[in-house]
């Protein structure tokens, strides 16, 4: 679990060098080939657009971020709840699992267009509903697997102790599913942010990062659009990092820190 300062440095240096190098090449290319701003703005131009519009970007980030967060929390809660029901009731599992897997393979965020019709134009509910749905499926599929795929030896052992189904659930299935939940969250956290942006493309208030990106592109404010993209990246990254930190904190003995099947 504990990493030496040297190994942290060793882990950080290569991507840092790569990132800085990439930005330098981008900047130089724009200057040398004289790209027009509507084609590709230089990183420096994007940065100054970001600095000038920090407050607007922050406002938009709060809107999209809150949508993503609400959807993430509700979707996770719902996914965990239903996966317990599936683990308990065989029939429900046989009905629900193929459906969930199939729906998970479809780009379901287009459903937001339908949700928009159900609510007032300025409502954020359709977007949150969309995020909830996306997160729900990711969490459901993973946690249900964690509850179900328990080693044969573990089950025989528990039966040899005459353990009840509830005891097996509490002492084997739930702890076994914890790493699966965090794997799901690591996928679902950035997905919730992306879904929140994309949901904004289908109408409603022009207040989030997604709609601001589209709006600025429509006005040929390319540097501003990229500045909002930068904000979107930071939001997605922060969601991912929070999921990662939660995983480290919540799994005892660093189980989550180790390689797992499906992780």
């Amino acid at each position, binding site marked *: 679990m504990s990493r030496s300062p040297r190994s942290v440095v060793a882990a950080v240096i290569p991507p840092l060098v790569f990132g800085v190098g990439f930005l330098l090449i981008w900047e130089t290319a724009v200057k040398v080939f004289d790209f027009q701003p509507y084609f590709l703005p230089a990183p420096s131009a994007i940065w100054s657009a970001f600095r000038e519009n920090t407050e607007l970007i922050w406002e938009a980030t709060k809107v999209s971020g809150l949508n993503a967060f609400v959807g993430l929390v509700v979707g996770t809660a719902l996914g965990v709840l239903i996966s317990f029901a599936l683990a308990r009731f065989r029939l429900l599992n046989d009905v629900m699992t193929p459906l969930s897997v199939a729906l998970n393979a479809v780009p379901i965020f287009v459903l937001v267009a339908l949700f928009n019709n159900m609510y007032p134009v300025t409502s954020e509910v359709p977007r949150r509903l969309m995020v909830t749905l996306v997160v729900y499926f990711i969490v459901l599929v993973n946690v249900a697997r964690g509850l179900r795929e328990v080693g044969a030896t573990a089950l*025989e*052992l528990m*039966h040899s102790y*005459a353990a009840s189904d509830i005891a097996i659930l509490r*002492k084997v299935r739930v702890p076994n599913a914890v790493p699966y939940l965090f794997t799901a969250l690591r996928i679902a956290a950035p997905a919730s942010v992306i879904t929140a942006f994309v949901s904004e493309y289908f109408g409603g208030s022009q207040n989030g990062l997604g709609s601001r990106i589209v709006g600025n592109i429509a006005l040929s404010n390319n540097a501003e659009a990229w500045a909002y993209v930068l904000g979107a990246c930071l939001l997605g990254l922060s969601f991912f990092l929070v999921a990662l930190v939660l995983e480290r904190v919540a799994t005892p003995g*660093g189980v989550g820190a180790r390689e797992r099947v499906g992780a």
Partner: protein
Amino acid sequence: MTGVKAVEVRGLSKVFNAGKPNEVPALVDIDLVIEPGEFVSLIGPSGCGKSTQLRLIANLLEPTTGEVLVNGKPARTARLDQDYGMAFQQAGLFDWRSVVKNVELPLELKGWDKARRRTRALEMLELVKLPEFAEHFPWQLSGGMQQRVAIARALAAHPPLLLMDEPFGALDEMTREHMQAELLRIFGETATTVVFVTHSIPEAVYLSTRVVVMSPRPGRITDVIEVDLGPGRDVDTREADAFFKKVTEVREALRGIQPAGVEPDIVQVVDEP
């Protein structure tokens, strides 16, 4: 309670998928009585039903016919009373629990309070000589150490009977011999009856007071060999004449038993040029 047998198996048979096209008779006509304090090995080629027999004793499987008594009770009652501990080929420790918490598991299920659980679990780790690893996690331990924790867990509730299904099968030869010596020491210290499934002849002879030889298709007992090497077995025992004699005896008993999956006529074709 003199006269109560540790294990009594009468007219036992087990058929898997009974009545279906893929019906497999796994065991027929098994009779076996094990006295308290015995160390009995079940040996035979794979497919002879030795693991099945162990699971029937453990009541993890239900017999097709016949009955199994453990401590004079029906196997199911014995299981519900946690009258036996079990160890498997895989240690089967829970990754999310520390070593000492793994050992506490059967005591938790019995409803012991925390302090009593901890005291007993630490005693058991003392017994398997791993007290300093109590707070480690299973994946920080070697295979042999994990198996010792599994034995500590199986014995934590002080069951009168220990059922072991090839517990050292996945270990290397050196670790294996060490673990055998450790098991004999624990067997001597705890006065537990042991039923041990293996397919290693020297392992069966070295550990057991009695070796039960089984044949496949369907599984039945073909021979029972007493091993009177005395209680104080050590490294020298493995090099003693009496040990080799017993190994030969068990090997002869196993000879002529057709390994599962090899049909006699195929052997014929190979033999004739």
